[in-house]
């Protein structure tokens, strides 16, 4: 029995607190309809309402969101904010009025008043009556004889014997509160959340919005990558081919008149083609490492780690299918981090971990070297950061003096 009481006590107290706050909140909400009406009226004053009304709806949204947050906390359910359509087409007031959420806010005003006032009043009565009875009964003799303190609504307290009824009253009202407050508070919270909850259509619209944005980011990253490749090919390989063609052209012209020069130019052109091939191979490696195309991410990483100068342990979860750009970046990240660990840190062991975390690929490379990585000293980490940022990922390098060095990278990979 005591156990059960103790167990439910937090819910009763939580419910009472919730409803006691709900009551003044509902009273404040009473002012919402006239205020909103007034805001709308200001449209007639040189269209000031087109500014005032959205502002008022914004305040209403914050007010409703505050209620949702309280309700979510009471019911212990996750709270997801519903932001107003701040950006988009058309003037703000029209966007707001078209927003399903705003219409829900307006409906909620009446629900909040209709449910908040009675439940809040009941909570106030229960809590107030218990407190009042406890404090006032020992002081029954202070009350004027014409207006004596009454217990159980009817029994006038005119003697200490009658005052003994007080515990009965406290128990009765307390029991009512004990039973009703948690239920009413939860009912109120559920009603609020239900009225304000986004419909499946809203949820879909929100998801489309998120996807559109992440897709735009991906297209941006893709564009940056294409520009980098274009630059590499244009400044490197293409320039070399032009130089080769020029030498071959001159060599052709001087073949009979000056065979010696022609031979020298041919030799230079030949060497030029070899340099161009080497450079092209390097560019291809940065676009998409061939081993990745041949063996997939896991095979490529295995090959990478087995040929490192120090023992590298590779741990991966089931990564499923990853976008090619993410695989290429992941390979690049591990390659740079492992090279860094083996070349600069004096590590004797390296751990490479890859795992899926929500909608991103998490990579951590830990080495037991001496730490104190200085990113300004050409450690390859600058290139790593750039590559990760191009995919809208994050890089975190922790390298206290004395080690260990931990490089953590997250690459978004919504698919």
């Amino acid at each position: 029995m005591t156990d059960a009481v103790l167990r439910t006590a937090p819910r009763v107290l939580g419910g009472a607190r919730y409803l006691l706050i709900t009551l003044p909140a509902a009273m404040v909400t009473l002012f919402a309809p006239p205020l909103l009406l007034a805001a709308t009226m200001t449209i007639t004053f040189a269209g000031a309402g087109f500014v005032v009304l959205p502002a008022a709806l914004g305040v209403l949204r914050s007010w409703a969101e505050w209620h949702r947050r309280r309700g979510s906390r009471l019911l212990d359910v996750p709270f997801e904010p519903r932001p107003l359509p701040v950006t988009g087409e058309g003037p703000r007031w029209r966007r707001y009025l078209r927003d399903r959420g705003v219409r829900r806010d307006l409906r909620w005003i009446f629900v909040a008043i209709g449910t908040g006032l009675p439940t809040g009043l009941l909570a106030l009565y229960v809590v107030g009556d218990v407190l009042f009875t406890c404090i006032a009964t020992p002081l029954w003799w202070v009350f004027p004889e014409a207006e004596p303190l009454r217990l159980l609504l009817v029994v006038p307290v005119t003697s200490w014997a009658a005052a003994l009824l007080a515990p009965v009253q406290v128990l009765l009202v307390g029991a009512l509160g004990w039973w009703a407050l948690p239920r009413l508070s939860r009912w109120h919270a559920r009603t609020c959340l239900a009225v304000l909850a986004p419909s499946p259509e809203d949820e879909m619209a929100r998801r489309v919005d998120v996807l559109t944005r992440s897709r735009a980011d991906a297209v941006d990253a893709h564009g940056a990558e294409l520009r980098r490749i274009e630059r590499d090919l244009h400044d490197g390989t293409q320039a070399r081919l032009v130089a080769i063609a020029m030498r071959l052209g001159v060599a052709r012209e001087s073949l009979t008149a000056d065979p010696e020069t022609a031979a020298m130019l041919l030799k230079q052109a030949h060497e030029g083609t070899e340099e161009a091939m080497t450079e092209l191979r390097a560019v291809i490696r940065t676009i998409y490492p061939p081993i990745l195309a041949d063996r997939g991410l896991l095979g490529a990483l295995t090959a990478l780690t087995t040929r490192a100068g120090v023992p590298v342990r590779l741990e991966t979860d089931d990564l499923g299918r990853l976008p090619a750009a993410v695989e290429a970046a992941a390979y690049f990240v591990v390659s740079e981090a492992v090279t860094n660990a083996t070349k600069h840190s004096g590590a004797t062991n390296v751990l490479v971990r890859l795992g899926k975390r929500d909608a991103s690929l998490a990579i951590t490379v830990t080495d037991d070297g001496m730490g104190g990585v200085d990113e300004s000293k050409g450690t390859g980490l600058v290139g790593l950061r750039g590559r990760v940022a191009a995919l809208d990922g994050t890089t975190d390098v922790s390298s206290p003096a004395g080690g260990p060095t931990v490089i953590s990278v997250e690459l978004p990979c919504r698919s």
Partner: protein
Amino acid sequence: MQVVIVEDNVLLSAGLELILDTRGIEVAACVGDAPTFLAAVEEHRPDAAIVDVRLPPTFRDEGIKAALQARRNRPELPVLVLSQYVEQDYARELLSDGRGGVGYLLKDRVSRVGEFVDALERVAAGATVMDPEVVAQLLSRRDDLVGSLTPREREVLALMAEGHDNSTIRSRLVVSDNAVHKHIGNIFAKLGLGQHDSGHRRVLAVLAYLGSGRTGG
């Protein structure tokens, strides 16, 4: 000498045929995929096979698999694998059967006709030929192992790993026979490797040493 070529890119296979033709090497068959290649090897019994790594249908490492399969079918078949890029893992797989007659070169090397044909002939004769790029990658990653070598000894080590014999090393570095012997002796002593004669066993030992995480041989 008679060879079979498997290369799906017509430009490259035509170039290879041209080069081999000018050097008097007969191309018995020039095919574009692995199954036809295996059949051609059975049919022509060539002195060597030239294999491209990326072949249809998936253009991944079919060539490596085809080369290994061809050597399982005919263990004495010398195979020279050509690729647009080198990958140590592939080199390791090609060498894993421990027999000689294996070459792994970048396609770039074909343009140095003399050296390319020389490499092909050495592979056909049972030697092991590794691309300088593979060896350079191995050496650059293993500073810990080769740090005690002098620059000249490193050069000798690299040439050994590429599969050259002592006389080629001598003429490449323009040094005397004695000097080469002395360098090789020093290298094996410093690295703690057992002496090997100059055949493919020496290449395997050196490559295995550079590729391993252990010290000692």
